[in-house]
């Protein structure tokens, strides 16, 4: 399977989904997303950080400094209530979108 370019805004919902399992630092989020999508989505790893910071500003996630598994100082992100609501709304509309596109492609 060829790698797909990431649709605009889709990164946000992927990050939210990733963080819904628990607090993670930025690097872990990248790793998690690559593993889950089996590297099908081509993300420039750095692109993740502006997205994280923007979501922090919006109050969807919040950050705290902690210690990583290898004893390094790392910034951990966690989902807020607002972020959880955002995730539900986004994934619902994403699924509706995917279904609609799928239906069109099947009838074609």
């Amino acid at each position, binding site marked *: 399977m060829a790698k797909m370019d990431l649709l605009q805004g889709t990164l946000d919902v992927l990050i939210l989904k990733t963080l819904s399992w628990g607090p993670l*630092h*930025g*690097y872990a989020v*990248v*790793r998690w997303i690559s593993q889950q999508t089996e590297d099908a989505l081509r993300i*420039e*790893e*750095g*692109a993740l*950080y*502006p997205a994280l*910071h*923007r979501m*922090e*500003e919006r109050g969807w996630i*919040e950050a*705290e*400094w902690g210690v*990583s598994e*290898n004893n*390094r*100082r*790392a*910034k951990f992100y966690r989902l807020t209530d607002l972020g959880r609501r955002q995730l539900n709304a986004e994934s619902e509309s994403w699924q509706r979108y995917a279904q609609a596109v799928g239906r069109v492609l099947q009838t074609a």
Partner: protein
Amino acid sequence: MASWRRSFRLHLRGGTVEQDVDDEIAFHIETRTRDLIEEGFPPHLAREEALRLFGQVEGVRRTCREIGVRRERGRRWTEVFSELRQDAVFAFRQLREAPAFALIAIFTLALGIGATTAIFSLLNAVVLQPLPFPEPERIVYLWSVDRGQDRSTSPGNFFEFKNGVPSFERLAASVKASFNLTGDGAPERIDGSRVSAEYFEVLGVQPALGRGFTAAEDAPGRERVVVLSDGLWRERFGGDPKILNQAIRLNGLPHTVIGVMPAFVTLSSSDSRLWVPLALPPEDATNYGNSYLRVIGRLGPGASRTAAQAEVGRIAKRLKELDPRSNVDKEARIEPFLDRLLSGYRRRLLILLGAVACVLLIACVNVANLLLARGAARGREIAIRAALGAGRRRIVRQLLTESLVLSLAGSAAGAGLAWLGLRGLVAISPGGVPRLGQAGIDGTALACALGLGLVASLLSGLVPALRTARPDLQSTLKEGGRSIGAGSPRDRVRSGLLVAEVALSLVLLAGAGLLIRSALALQNVELGFEPAGVLTAQLSLPEADYPETERAVAAVQRVVGEVARIPGVESAAAVSILPLSGSDTSSRLDIEGNPLPPGQELHGSTREVTPGYFHTMRIPLLRGRDFTAADRKGAPKVAVVNQALARLAWPGGDALGKRLAYTGEDDKPDWIEVVGVAGDVRLGHLEDEEVRPGFYLPMDQSDLLRGDISAAVVARTAGDPAALAPAVRRAVTTVDPRLPVFEVATMEEVRAASAATARFNMLMLTALGVIGLLLAAVGIYGVIAWFVSQRTQEIGLRMALGATQGRVLAMVTWQAMRPVLVGLAVGVLGALAATRLLGGLLFGVTATDPLTFAGVLAVLAAAALLASWVPARRASRVEPSRALAP
């Protein structure tokens, strides 16, 4: 949550937003490199690969930093606001627990701010705003000054000034005139002006519709054109632009409407509602004797008033030589247009402003005192909070927030009061105040008053805040928050404030008292006639409809006859000018057998009346007889004089049968016989110092009635005179349907209108005086109540040691009254200085009237005594055991 995160971060690092971003990216790259190596990537290439996978490090770093900085800034603001909100909520809670304090403080501030803003807004609209004309400072009046009095100018003099003063770019003349407007709708009496062609150019205004007058139209025979005011155009003609070039009937003659002026030209409700050309007849160019023109001019650009004054002075000198008979005593003076417009209003409004400033100051002093007292009373509470760890800054900020909340609430209420007050003022103000209609709440004034209230409450909040927040906890807690020892510096501050408050109130009340006395004096002025039960109505008979005076007089007499027949009318008559209407005409008199020395003249007010006038008005005829129907044209000429004239013309003698003349050549007077002496009547204004000398003529016989004739019908009625107004209107219509009936009013209303300005002054200052008195009483009460609460312990001790209730009462009251007495003394001095400004507004009372001062002192002292007695009595009932209990 926020604080948890903040403290956590603080412990882990002291970094900035920028540092955070760098650390985060560095962590990513390092961890990635390590993972790559673990996955078997050649170690020396791993870091490079990690960087490649990351992408544009610099771009990411910059974006993240920007977001971070923005986020931090937002967070700081949120924190500030949330703390402010906490403080405000706390302040509200504190104020709710002391509702009396809060309400008094808010009410006090609201009164001060509201009154000041309303009056200043009025002053701003009427006095301070520039005139709506272009370069208004160049518009001036040109007066002929006759022995110190500003007078109108004669046509001959006007032309001399017009051609001889280079400083004037333009000079125009006008004369007030009234017009009967007939045609569609009821006939109407319209006040307007005859103006020379350049009049509007002097003002610098263009008509909103159509055009102004041309020079050609400003000539006899060509002058049947009219320019309407915006108000008349809208009210009478429905604002229809098609009115242009149509003819309307003025005084019976068709006039073509050529223009409509914009609304801003009308400065007051008594301004002209239409303009027609002045159209001076050519022979008037050398008429130097008949001064009736009001002259305004526009100075040329760059021309100074001083230069113009010098030039008109030279012309005046030349006029003395040109026509010594009329001009020997005449000088000339120019006066800025606005000065004349505002003469009489400027000072009155400034006095009002001074009065409200007093009220605002009293209000501020009051709030300061209240807050000081509250701060002192809360010493213990604050000490406890400080002991529990509240920081000094935090405590001060909380106290200041409380002041802020108070002053904001007071300001909001004050703005509302100002709005109401301004509407009330406009509603009750006497007519004719220029530009009153444009008065709206002035933003600057409101802001200033708000600022003052804010500063007052913040300052007075700050003093106790700083003091009580001082970490001198132990003594405060030990003393139980009660400080023993009056006479501390803060007490002196409070006493000083009290002194100021009392003094300011006294100044206000003294002014109000003098105006009340003036209004009472006006009420009791001997009118010389009985106004109750009399209905009056104005008639105007234009020359165009009544070319012969005889026919006009006959019409007036027919109207009188019709009115007399109305059921309920006991008697009716007509008079050329109604008493107390403010108008007057006078003639120079010759007295037979008593020639005046040269340079001295006797003038008498002239009134033409129909038979029965004296009876109808209940003017006593002291000697002789009333006019009868037999005193008609052609019959021997007769007059009735008033007592004032009789005394002046025939001192010590009997006027009856003597002769006087008001017409005729100097060497051949047209003598008329005095057949009666009538009681003195206030002919002009209620405020006239004394009754003017005057004489009455039978309307039939007068030689002074010429041109457009106006008269007032007076009817004495059995019941309510106002109820007969429609019947009087019908009576006039029966005689001539073209005649407008205007100013139908009872004589009581005419009298009230004559006293309206004085009553307005009195009402305003009295209202402010009462507000000041109330505020001062509240202030005194507040201070004394605090004083008592602070000294409960001491008082209890004294009583335990044998002091009687009476002694305690006396002691506390004396403590309170000491600053009050000082304030009264200071106030008397201030009032003596301030009431001199009232000079021109007083009637029948001097500015230093001892009775008024004594009365005001008594009122204020009584209020202060009451305000201090209430808490003092509470103090005298202190139970020693309770007061001394720990």
